[in-house]
């Protein structure tokens, strides 16, 4: 049986999602996408600053990719919903990553506003991928609200600190019947591999690739790591024994 990732009814060919922020130049992006093999690529919506000449990112993303605008800049559900609607109307497809952050120090998401935005946008036919702080109750509400996946952070955006929240992510994998996609904090290919081994459906990586000395090579490394992790997960790792065999038998009396 083929191992397929399906999100919002669509088959996604790569479990490595790519963020396009922080690159030294947009010109690198097509090559990085080739190296990572990513199909889902995130972009953001911003006001044009006439003083700052920046080229349109969309022209650097190939037509086969699924463009996923994020709602970065939104501080509450209402703003996130507005951004999502504009992005879709501007021809961006109906996938959206909800990112509602009202915390400038750590850039941690507002789970409550995220659920609200998810509910509204899912009802309008968006394929909603909410970025959230790994909390089981929130995740359950996101399922009810109609999310197409759940995207818990591994550690704060840009921190490159890996899967600090791994225990909570583990719980989400066990309890939530949607693809779990680790988004934020993955700093190394080995961390992406670890997330995939744990059983997440995909990972979203931005900073670690964009700010590497050689983003293309780093992109390629992440691609291999994600594949390796996925294969390992499917191969069924052996059990780890937490304790050695104990001394006194509890069921000996049954044999009498």
């Amino acid at each position: 049986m083929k191992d397929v990732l399906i999100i919002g009814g669509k088959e996604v060919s790569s479990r490595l999602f790519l963020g396009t922020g922080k690159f030294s130049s947009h010109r690198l992006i097509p090559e990085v996408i080739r190296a990572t093999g990513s199909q889902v690529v995130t972009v953001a919506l911003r006001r044009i600053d006439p003083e700052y000449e920046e080229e349109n990112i969309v022209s650097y993303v190939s037509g086969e990719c699924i463009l996923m605008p994020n709602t970065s800049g939104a501080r509450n559900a209402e703003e996130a919903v507005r951004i999502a609607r504009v992005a879709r109307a501007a021809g961006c497809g109906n996938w959206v990553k909800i990112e509602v952050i009202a915390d400038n120090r750590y850039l941690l998401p507002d789970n409550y506003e995220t659920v609200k935005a998810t509910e509204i946008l899912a009802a309008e036919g968006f394929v909603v991928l909410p970025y959230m702080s790994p909390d089981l109750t929130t995740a359950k509400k996101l399922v009810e609200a109609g999310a197409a996946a759940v995207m818990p952070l591994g550690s704060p955006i840009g921190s490159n600190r890996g899967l600090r929240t791994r225990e909570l992510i583990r719980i989400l994998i066990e309890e939530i019947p949607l693809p779990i996609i680790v988004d934020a904090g993955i700093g190394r290919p080995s961390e992406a591999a670890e997330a995939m081994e744990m059983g997440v459906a995909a990972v979203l990586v931005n900073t670690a690739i964009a700010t590497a000395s050689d983003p293309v090579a780093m992109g390629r490394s992440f691609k291999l790591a994600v594949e390796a992790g996925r294969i390992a997960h499917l191969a069924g790792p052996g059990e780890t024994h937490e304790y050695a065999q104990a001394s006194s038998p509890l069921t000996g009396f049954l044999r009498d």
Partner: protein
Amino acid sequence: MCQRYDKFDFDSFFKQVTDAGIKRIIAKNRLTETDFLSLLSPRAEKYLEEMAQKAHRCTVQNFGRVIFLFTPMYLANYCVNQCVYCGFNVHNKLERKKLTRAEVEREAKIIAATGLKHILILTGESRRESPVSYIRECVEVLKKYFTSISIEVYPLEENEYVELVSVGVDGFTMFQEVYNKEAYAEFHPGGPKRNYRFRLEAPERACRAGMRTVNVGALLGLHQWRAEAFLTGLHADYLQNTFPDVEVSISPPRMRPQLGGFPPKVEVSDKNLVQYILAFRLFMPRGGVTISTREPSELRDRLVRLGATKMSAGSSTAVGGHSASCAQTGQFEISDKRGVMEMAKMLYAQNYQPVYKDWQTL
């Protein structure tokens, strides 16, 4: 949920369970339904000790070295059902009785004097003799003596559960008796209890009404125990998933001699009972396991460290049985006749603490 397993071939499944598979399951953190069933298989009997060690650690970690004590109070034994295995069967000749307010108060005083704060009240199924209003009246009396009241009565409508919750009932027990539909019909030839679905869905109605704890179970001995244990576990898991805030537990009662003398159709050995409890503990690490006085003292003592979390003490299954002056016929014969003090002593000897009061609704 049960429908999925209506035509399931348990025997074929058990045949393909492997040693390696069982070892892998025991080491897992979160078991699937299939894992649970594998641990209930005959093959898994070889691994009882490993299961026990992990189940023991798991129980201690989740519940502490603690056993919660309670006692049942039978309020009335009028019953219109014809359950073939029950002492209160409408056809059985025994004195039918229901406690008056004064008698309820007397029973309550005696029980409260032993230190217990949680009580389980039971009635037979009779909307005429023990209607909801009667149960409600008894609860009003019992509230003065106990901080937590659970009910084990006939299936009610949701609004009736809401009513009882509003006067202070916070726990609910309902045994499906037999999850297998065909077998169920066989054992319940007459009376409202024939309605399989209404009974099966009672726990959900109770949870929606606001009950904080729910206890389900099958009566072991009526039908193949491995299948029944499995479906009980699934039912508990379903309730936990649907009502995450409710404390879910199971009871594994084995048939006991009763008036009417109906013998068990299936033998359930001590080993089987232990396997059931251990498998359930590994499947639902935070699920409660209630062991009643149906089981003999020696076995109950052992079960303390094998996953039990709640036990009854000083029990009587007769109406008004706690007041020594009434020598009534009970619903079934009790095995472990120890009172609260003796149970406490046994627990302390095992380095466990008896708990009489878990909480109180404010």
